[in-house]
Structure formats: structure tokens, C-alpha cells
């Protein structure tokens, strides 16, 4: 599901540096970004060094993910931050750190590869070009694939904007080639699958809270919240329909058509049939619940009996054996036997019944 989509046409991409025997592709490139990568970037942005005023306000990091076979689709799956310093005329990226961290990341996810880099400001400058050329170079970067550059605006006063670029070499002369390149914007979207919906749902639950915290709720509470919300939406639609009937609202054929076709999806069933099915099913479900609790009680009982200090056992043990040690053992043994009896009795009662229940 695409959450953020850029609407622009992307016809072709710039040619990378041509090398003998290697033909670079000029097919369009699409970038999809998974939420955890964005979240990582935002987290990294909040963790930048603010104590040192000379430090740049942006942070950089590497993007890791997968690339489709023909290289036209890339998916950014995760990322990691890289320490760097920017001064007036030079930029320093911890290359050693990047290399080690990449190796560590790839060890956990062997199918992924280095894709490019990100920074937390929208600005593109000559430092960007330098870093871009580093990430795109043959020995340290993504060559022959183009390095992707993702910029995320993290200015607190504005909306968070993401842009995605690839680059082509451009320079007035060969000396300046290292610090200049042409950034070309490429389309990108944020993708999340069904599996991530639950986590994203949980974190969006906190978005309207003052303290930015949300407790994890149980299933039934979540169901309640969903139903309340659905009732609210239904109310809104009903209100509109009633408004149309009372001629307060402007009728709309398209909406009515949509509502009709949606409502006609409700199955027509025999009332007796539904009552019958309902009763059967609810009985099954309640039975399963009841049995599960019975089992829990039985096991609890079995555990208690297994460790219970049964007095009769102790006395018998004392009488039978002279040694203290033996007496204790006898007591333990009796207690254990009691526990076993309880547990087994329950087990036998349940065993034939239980497997049938869920199948019904």
C-alpha cells in the first residue's frame, strides 16, 4: 500500500560513468521505502549532536535494502547512521565506520545490499556531491548501480518532506569531477505491507496524545475502538442519507450507487438458518472457552498436588523408615503420587473429549 506517492513522470535516468564492457541501463528507476527506514532516519535526526554548535545540523547515513534483478526497482529496507563532520571547506565521513557497520548489517540480512545514503535536510550542496560520488564509486559504493540519495526534511516547523535522487557525473574539468554531480529526482513511495499495519496502527494510536505515549491494548479493546469508529462513520452516512430524504442535502447519484452496491453485498439468509448457525457456533465457542479454563484449573491442581506437603504421607513415612532422610523422601513421594493421580484423572476425562471440540 502506498502511503506517499509523488505524482510526476520519470522518463529516463542519467547515464552513469561509462566503462568498457559495462553498459549502464537507462530504464526508469522506482524507489520504495519501508516505514522502518523512515523511522530510523527520523530517530537518527533527533539524536544528532546538538551540544557542539560547529556540527552540521544534518546527519547522514547509509540506505540498505534490495534491488530488483534488472535494477529498475529498489526497496529501502533499513538504514544506519554514519558519524560525519562538516566544516567550511571540507566534509569528513567515517569511512571505516561505514564499512564495519555495513558488514554487520549485511551479516544479519545477507540478501540486502548497500543502496545509497540519506541526509536529514533537503539541501543539496557540493558536500552532497562529494558524498554522493563516494557512495556511487566502484570500490566503496554501489557501482554499477546508481547510488540513491534520499533527503528527508526534519525541520520542526514544516511538514516532513522526502525527496529521492540519483546522480550523473558532470564537471567543467576532471579535477572538479569528484565534488560535483547532477542530481536527478526519481519517483519514490512509502510502502507498507499488511504485516506492518499492526505496528503502524499501534504507533499511530499515540499520535493525538499530548505525551506521545499509547499503551498497547488487548484485542477486545481494539475491537471496541474499531466498532466505535465504524459506528461514527455509519452515523455520518445515515445523516447524509436522511438529509437527502428530507431534501436538505444535494442528492448524488454516484454516492447512492456506491452505497447500493455496497449494501447489496449483505447476504440474504434464512432467519431460521442464521439463528441455528449462530446458536451452534456460539455454543462451540463457549464450550472451547469453558474447556480451556477447565484444563487450566486441572493443571493448576496437578501442579499444586505435585508439590503439596501431604501430612498423612509424612507420618507414614516417619513410621516406616527410621532415618530422617528416608522419612522426608517418603513424604515427598506420597505428595508426588497425589499430584499425579489428580493430573491423570483430569487427563483421562478430558482427552477423548477435547480433540473433537474444535473440529465441530
Amino acid at each position, binding site marked *: 500500500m502506498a502511503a506517499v506517492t509523488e505524482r510526476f513522470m520519470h522518463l529516463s535516468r542519467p547515464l552513469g560513468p561509462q566503462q568498457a564492457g559495462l553498459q549502464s541501463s537507462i530504464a526508469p528507476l522506482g524507489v520504495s521505502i519501508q516505514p522502518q527506514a523512515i523511522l530510523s532516519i527520523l530517530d537518527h535526526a*533527533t539524536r544528532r549532536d546538538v551540544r557542539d554548535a560547529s556540527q552540521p545540523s544534518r546527519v547522514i547515513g547509509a540506505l540498505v535494502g534490495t534491488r530488483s534483478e534488472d535494477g529498475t526497482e529498489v526497496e529501502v529496507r533499513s538504514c544506519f547512521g554514519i558519524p560525519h563532520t562538516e566544516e567550511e571547506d571540507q566534509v569528513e565521513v567515517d569511512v571505516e565506520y561505514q564499512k564495519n557497520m555495513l558488514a554487520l548489517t549485511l551479516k*544479519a540480512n545477507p540478501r540486502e545490499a548497500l543502496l545509497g545514503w540519506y541526509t536529514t535536510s533537503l539541501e543539496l550542496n557540493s558536500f552532497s556531491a562529494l558524498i554522493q560520488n563516494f557512495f556511487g564509486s566502484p570500490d566503496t559504493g554501489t557501482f554499477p548501480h546508481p547510488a540513491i540519495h534520499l533527503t528527508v526534511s526534519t525541520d520542526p516547523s514544516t511538514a516532513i518532506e522526502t525527496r529521492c535522487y540519483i546522480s550523473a557525473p558532470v564537471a567543467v574539468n576532471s579535477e572538479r569531477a569528484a565534488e560535483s554531480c547532477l542530481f536527478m529526482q526519481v519517483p519514490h513511495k512509502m510502502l507498507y505491507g499488511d504485516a506492518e499495519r499492526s505496528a503502524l496502527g*499501534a504507533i*499511530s494510536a499515540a499520535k493525538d496524545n499530548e505525551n506521545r505515549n499509547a499503551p498497547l491494548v488487548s484485542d477486545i479493546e481494539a475491537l471496541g475502538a474499531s466498532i466505535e469508529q465504524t459506528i461514527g462513520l455509519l452515523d455520518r452516512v445515515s445523516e447524509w442519507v436522511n438529509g437527502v430524504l428530507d431534501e436538505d442535502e444535494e442528492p448524488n447519484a454516484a454516492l447512492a450507487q456506491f452505497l447500493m452496491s455496497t449494501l447489496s453485498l449483505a447476504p440474504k439468509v434464512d432467519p431460521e438458518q442464521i439463528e441455528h448457525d449462530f446458536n451452534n457456533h456460539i455454543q462451540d465457542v463457549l464450550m472451547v472457552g469453558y474447556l480451556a479454563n477447565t484444563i487450566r484449573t486441572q493443571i493448576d491442581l496437578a501442579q499444586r498436588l505435585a508439590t503439596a506437603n501431604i501430612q498423612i504421607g509424612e507420618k507414614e513415612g516417619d513410621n516406616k523408615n527410621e532415618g530422617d532422610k528416608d522419612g522426608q523422601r517418603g513424604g515427598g513421594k506420597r505428595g508426588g503420587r497425589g499430584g499425579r493421580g489428580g493430573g491423570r484423572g483430569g487427563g483421562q476425562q478430558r482427552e477423548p473429549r477435547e480433540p473433537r471440540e474444535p473440529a465441530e
Partner: protein
Amino acid sequence: MTKVGQFPLRAAVKQLAVSRISRRLPRTRAALLTTLDRISPKSPELEILNMTDALKDAPFQAVQVDALVAVKINKHCSSAFPTTATGAIVGMDQNGVLEITNSFGFPSTDGASSDSHQNDASAAAAAAPRQKSNQTYQNEMIRHLKEVNVDANNVGWYTSVTLGNFVNMNFIENQVHYQTANNATVALVYDASKSSQGNLALRAFRLTTSFMTAFKEGKFTTDILQKSKLSYKDIFAELPVTIHNSHLLTSFLHQIPGLPSEEDIEPPVSSADLERDQVQAPLHPSIDMLDLAIDPFLEKTCDLLIESIESHYTDLNNFQFYQRQLGREQTKISQWQAKRKAENAQRAVAKQAPLPEDEWQRLFKLPQEPSRLEGMLNAKQVEQYSKQVDGFTAGISARMFAVRENLAPQ
């Protein structure tokens, strides 16, 4: 028929359609309302965690998970599903709350062979947190994360489970491993199959101090359990989990689709408009929760419950075997003792020195009592399953009443 004659007819049809919609909608609404009424009384699953005495000795009382960690764990575990995935979490504890701010997965030991040996891979991943190589990996990773200002303090580990089947030796051993090194650690348990229903199932556990001491001694015999009063309910304590977002993230979350806007919307011109601009489902409250097909989960839980009963039974058999063995040995001993007594009596008559009566301790060897830990864990697991069944039945019956109200005539 002229066009003039047709027009009122079309208007009538329209009227009819609208009135049908207006009849139908309140009914669905009423159905949902009754369901809501049904679930508002406290359901068994709502039972607030018993964080009374079990947690008193813990260095923190609650766990606060950063949104990043929730998403990372969710992603890692669901992409590895159905294989178990494990990883480490970092953060810090302050003011009685353990803040978990970052996480990373452990390298999976499988490779291409994972498909054919799924169980092996799962077992390997489950044991991963206490492996030597992963320890080095974890330390290395934390050292690197420190350089980008991430909290460089290991606070435990996470694992993925299927429908709550996590109470086993692997889990205990991993947590013991972490908790021995650092008391302020926690195990996050992410339920991949339960989360697919739309509600994030992330729970935090830590072992109680009494269990830790018992485990270090390594003895779980009946005697010791009697003395220490340790029951299966005191193995671990659950901690409440909250999700925390950064300011930046909150601002980002407001950019992804939420509820439909409250203002008046431009009415669509044609149904194609509706098709094209479909309303994005809000992430919270999730509409996945309204899915009616959760019976399979209940069924699977029942299967797991039956499995637990089986292992309970095996455990009992083992213990029974031990007791028979013990009984046999003890009869032998008492026979021997009787014989020795008789012999001594004879010797006393013959004025000879009596033979020692405690020699049996060397001659006979009493069988080792099997550890009761397995049984305890199993009991805990059963408790866990039956609570889960309670939760599912509550959900299913609520949904079923909604269906009946909506379909059956009033």
C-alpha cells in the same frame, strides 16, 4: 411512453433506493452498538496484570517501547515468519520505566537451507541470543551504535512467537543469560500470528528473582519446591508496555492517512471518481480488527493446548516411572535392612560385634528425581493458552452477535 412518463419512475426508483439505504444503515449501526455493549463489560483478557509482589524487586515497573523498535521488531519477525526471529534491544531504565530505543536482529544461522530445515532454523534462531558468536555481534553492534548517539546499553532481547507458544526452556535460558549479566533486562515477545489480526501483540516479560535463585541452584525437586513455595505462577512477571513516539515522528504520522476528514467533501461526479480516489483505511483504529474470520486462531490455540496436555502427560509418566523405581529401590532397602537386623540380632546372641546398619547407602543407589521445571513451564504454558482462548472467545462471540443482529430479522 414518452420521456416525461419515464422521469417520475426514475425518481421513484431513486427514492426507493435511498430509503432502502436509510433503513439498512441504522440496522447495521444498531448491530454494532449491541456488540459494543456486549464487549464493554470486563472481558477475561482485560484482567490487569498482577504486578503486585512479583515485580517489586524488579528495577523497573513498566516498559516503554519506541515506535522505531516496534516497527523494527514487527518487520524482522514478520519477514522471518514462520521461522523464529530473535534480536537484541538497547535502551536505558530511568524512574522505574525501561525505555527501549533501538533494536537489531541477530544474524540468522540458516542460509539457503532454511526452507528444507525450517524447524532447525527456528531452533537455531531461538537459541541465538545466548550463542557466543552473537554475543560478539551484539557487542560490536552496540559499540557502533554508540557512535551515532544511540543508547549503548543492552536491555534484553526480543523473540517472535506463534500464538503465545513461548514458555519453554529456550526462552527461560535466554532470559536467565541476560538477567544474570544485567538485572535490568527484559524479554520482548512479539506474536506474529496474533498481530496479523490488526492489533500489535507485543509483550514484555522478566524472570522473578525467586525463580532466578532457584534456577541458579539448578534443582527443581519436590522438596525444594515445597520449601521455596515457588509455583509455576512465579516464573516470570509481565510488564505493561507502552509505545512512545518522538515529536518528529508524531508530525510524520499526521501526514499518513488517518480518519476521513470531518469537513464537507466535494461530492463525486461519477462512480469512477470513487473508484479512483479510494479512501485510505486509517491505521488506527484498525479496520482489520473487524475481520470475522478469527476461528482459525482459536482452532490453532486449541491444537497447541492439546499439545501441552500431551507433554503434561509425558511429564507425568516420567515422574511415575521415577516413583516406581524409587518404590522398588526402597523395598529392596527395607528388605536389606530387615535382613541386616535379623543378622545383628543373631550376632548379638552369639556375642559378636554388630554389623553396621547404614551400609545400604553404599549398596543401593536411589534414582535421581526428575526436574519439575518442565512441568512448571508446561503449566505456565497452559495458563497462557487458556487466557488466550478466553480472549479469542470474547472476540468471536462479540463479532457473532454483530453478525446475527445484522442478518436476522428483528
